[in-house]
């Protein structure tokens, strides 16, 4: 079989632009062969090169005294957590594979993100995921959701890392294009991080782990194109996961990290061997000579470009100090894994790929990679007309409900608000016995760091409707909410990783959303001193609504990590005792904009972002930190989707308690109960601590108000009985299952 002919047409078919094809010829000084063209096409794809996003990504705050590996420097960001330890964490998307093959798409998403963590020598200790689907009453949505959850469950449970939180959100915007974002976090001794670097002329280059097959070829290109109804034809671009191999690879990698044999290591994810060889070489200012016929293969008849581009999972590239080969081979032999020398480090900026001794491709490493020769574009940006339109929303045009109990009943079973128990119970949330929330729920996932006094807190947050209404403010809110969740569970926000899910960047309105999101993220991350340690960008997410292709709601998922210096500061969201007083910290606003209530109950989709002020938010969070450190409260829970009454219900349900509250007469009752204006936190306080608690808030000059008290299960608003907590709990817990 001979390779296809190389010309501008074949370049286009591989996703390259005419000017990019021109640039390749200039770099090489000749027309590339098909293998080389394939190499450039994946390395210069959006997925690998961030060519339409990197200029803006560079404006994000990246520095901090606790940041050990900055964004883009390694496979994941690395944060100093004290005690000689560091936390590597990252979030990544696997949207396109999940849209066509939900089980494997989600499974390999979990595999890929965990590999990014342990390739740095860190043992994964926690994972989370953020899932967005279309409307749940749609049959395809059910199929997608069941498949995605099954995929995460099958892979993650076998691999053995607890899921400690996440999000599930439904909106027609994601009808054909679900978003599946997976996060993993791991711990490594701060001085034992493995770098993704290749250097030292003559050092051997190993491929370890699974054999290479034809799965996932051109996966990076697939992820860099619009998702259409023909995308199902791209199923061969989806990789197949094997969590058992991944588990072996994890243990072998960490065992290898205890030796002094490794120069550098990188996992093979998008764009396979070509990506790891080029990025590691570029990072070490060196080159590599690789014999592709030495790569262990899963099937016959694979040609060089297929081997280079294959995205077969559970593989790593390892560069080893010459003379230490036996150490490496013994460890991989112990774990029954492939471990094969496929090449060596050379001094020139050059990647030479051979096939049975014959040169089949020769390209400069530095020209392939982000920050080197990969193209960079600034796209046209245009404010969409809807942006000003949404601001015209007036609360007075919305009729107040006559039956508040009925509204509450509907909200409790709304899939965006109802318990995600059906999903969560399919994940192993307790393996490694470090999840501190199993019997004490809190706003963020709190993970014990055994052998220290510390715990780490993790959260994923983004409300795509807010971001759509106002990309800058909506993204700032996502960061603020993440920080609030960390603070409410007793932690100090530390750093973020982001997963930026947007439509087609060549659409000026999408690019406007993207640049607004980056602005909002920057200002909020600076305010909370949470630098961006990395993440990924997923463009080309779109869905067909009323026969029109629409970009998905812009979704910059924020994954934040925080530290509890004293793990005993963990604070639950659950009310503890009947009779405790309930307070609201922050202030109620006459605002129902972009709330689930406005969307679902009134069907109004056009409204601005909920009220939010970054400085005010920061002040509220500092005050919450002080209250928690002073041990003055029994529970802390922030107000988010569904509004105040949903927050109260969530706090009440865990221990089968209720609440009796009085609304604020100065604002509409629906805004008071269901509005989603930001910077509000519900706390419960014992009678014994009440005086000290109010004194502290008065001294700090923080807005607060007394809402009422915790009851033995009755729910009352303005002396009107809304029912008992158990009725709501049953509905809340079973709503999603009933719809499937």
């Amino acid at each position: 079989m001979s390779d296809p002919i190389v010309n501008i047409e074949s370049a286009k078919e591989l996703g390259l632009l005419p000017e990019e094809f021109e640039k390749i010829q200039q770099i090489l000084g000749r027309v590339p062969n098909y293998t080389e063209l394939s190499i450039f096409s994946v390395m210069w794809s959006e997925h690998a090169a961030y060519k339409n996003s990197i200029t803006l990504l560079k404006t994000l705050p990246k520095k901090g005294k606790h940041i050990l590996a900055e964004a883009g420097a390694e496979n994941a960001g690395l944060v100093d957590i004290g005690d000689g330890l560091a936390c590597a964490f990252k979030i990544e998307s696997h949207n396109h594979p999940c849209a066509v093959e939900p089980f494997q798409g989600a499974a390999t998403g979990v595999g890929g993100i965990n590999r990014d963590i342990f390739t740095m020598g860190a043992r994964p200790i926690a994972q989370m995921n953020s899932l967005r689907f279309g409307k749940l009453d749609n049959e395809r949505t059910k199929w997608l959701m069941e498949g995605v959850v099954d995929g995460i469950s099958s892979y993650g449970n076998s691999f053995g890392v607890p899921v400690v939180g996440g999000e599930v959100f439904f909106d027609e915007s994601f009808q054909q294009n679900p978003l599946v974002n997976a996060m993993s976090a791991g711990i490594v001794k701060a001085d034992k991080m493995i770098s993704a670097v290749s250097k030292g002329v003559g050092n051997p280059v190993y491929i370890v782990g699974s054999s290479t097959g034809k799965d996932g070829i051109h996966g990076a290109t697939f992820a860099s194109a619009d998702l259409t109804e023909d995308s199902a034809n791209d199923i061969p671009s989806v990789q197949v996961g094997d969590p058992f191999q991944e588990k072996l690879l994890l243990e072998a990698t960490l065992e290898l990290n205890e030796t002094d044999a490794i120069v550098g290591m990188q996992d093979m994810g998008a764009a396979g061997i070509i990506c790891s060889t080029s990025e590691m070489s570029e990072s070490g200012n060196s080159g590599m000579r690789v014999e592709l016929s030495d790569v262990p293969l899963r099937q016959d008849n694979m040609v060089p470009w297929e081997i280079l581009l294959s995205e077969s999972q559970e593989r790593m590239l390892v560069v080893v100090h010459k003379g230490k080969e036996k150490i490496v081979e013994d460890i991989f032999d112990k774990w029954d894994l492939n471990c094969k020398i496929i090449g060596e480090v050379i001094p020139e900026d050059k990647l030479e790929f051979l096939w049975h001794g014959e040169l089949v491709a020769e390209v400069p490493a530095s020209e392939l990679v982000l920050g080197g020769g990969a193209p960079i574009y600034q796209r046209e940006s245009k404010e969409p007309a809807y942006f000003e339109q949404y601001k015209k929303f007036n609360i007075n045009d919305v009729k107040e409900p006559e039956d508040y109990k009925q509204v509450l009943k509907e909200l409790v079973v709304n899939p965006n608000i109802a318990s995600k128990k059906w999903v969560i119970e399919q994940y192993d949330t307790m393996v490694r016995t470090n999840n501190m929330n199993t019997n004490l729920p809190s706003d963020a996932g709190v993970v014990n760091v055994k052998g220290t006094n510390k715990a780490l807190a993790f959260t994923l947050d983004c409300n795509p409707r807010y971001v759509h209404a106002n990309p800058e403010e909506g993204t700032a809110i996502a960061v603020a909410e993440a920080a609030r969740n960390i603070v409410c569970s007793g932690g100090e926000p530390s750093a973020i990783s982001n997963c930026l899910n947007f439509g087609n960047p060549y659409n000026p309105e999408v690019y406007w959303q993207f640049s607004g999101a980056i602005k909002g993220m920057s200002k909020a991350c600076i305010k909370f001193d949470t630098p961006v340690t990395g993440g990924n960008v997923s463009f080309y997410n779109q869905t067909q609504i009323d026969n029109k292709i629409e970009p998905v709601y812009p979704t910059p998922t924020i994954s934040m990590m925080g530290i509890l210096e004293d793990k005993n500061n963990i604070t639950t969201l659950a009310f503890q005792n009947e009779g405790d007083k309930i307070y609201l910290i922050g202030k109620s606003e006459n605002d129902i904009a972009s709330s689930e209530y406005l969307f679902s109950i009134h069907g109004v989709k056009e409204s601005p972002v909920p009220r939010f002020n970054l400085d005010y938010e920061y002040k509220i969070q500092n005050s919450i930190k002080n209250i928690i450190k002073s041990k003055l409260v029994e529970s802390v829970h922030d107000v988010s989707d569904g509004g105040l009454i949903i927050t109260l219900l969530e706090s009440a349900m865990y221990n089968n308690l209720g609440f009796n509250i009085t609304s604020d007469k100065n604002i509409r009752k629906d805004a008071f109960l269901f509005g989603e204006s930001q910077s509000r936190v519900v706390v419960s306080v014992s009678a014994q601590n009440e005086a000290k608690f109010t004194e502290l808030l008065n001294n700090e000059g923080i807005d607060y108000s007394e809402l009422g008290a915790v009851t033995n299960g009755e729910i009352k608003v303005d002396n009107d009985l809304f029912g008992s907590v158990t009725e709501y709990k049953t509905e809340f817990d079973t709503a999603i299952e009933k719809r499937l």
Partner: protein
Amino acid sequence: MKFGVLIFPGSNCDHDMVYTLKNILKQEVIELWHKDSDLQNVDAIAIPGGFSFGDYLRSGAIARYSPIMESVIEFANNGGFVFGICNGFQILCETGLLPGALLHNDNQKFICKNVFLKADNNTTSFTKYIEPNKALKIPIAHGEGKYFADEETISELKNNNQILFRYCDENANVSNEVNPNGSVDNIAGICNKNKNVYGMMPHPERAADKTTGNIDGLQILESMIKSIEKQNK
């Protein structure tokens, strides 16, 4: 006491088991690799949870053929104390050291959550020294946890007091509604006739560290240690 914790490729509760026995229960612990066959004079063997060899076939079906398992079977047949949790229980059923089998959960899904367990009797090492009639809160995490055996075996288990725990509610009432996986008679764990081989699906080692907010599992493990120590005296 000296415990040997078996490590199969794919075991993922091995660290939790070692941590619980060593750091919380202050026992001597060594790790035993599946390719070895020397049990190094341990007093008891623990087979931890996980997905040994990926469990792509029936759970535990491959692990039973490991070299270490031949030694464990011999050890058990000579009266040595062996216990398996979750995948460990599945492996013990595959070897035939324990009767019955673990089938796919009734809902065909993996389930991870807290459940309650009630001791069936107080004649076994796992149940002898725990609070009687108390519902213990212990997590489960399995896809194949539905205990099944034929009627004859079940009645033998009953007659010989081989049933360790049954799934119950928080008030220790055993009923169908609280059976998480469809196990026959709500059976969550059993032992062999000689009462030296034990297996249970729920994870007591996940309810042993106070930072998890629940230490009900310690009662089971402490009862086990106390029982073995008394026997060995």
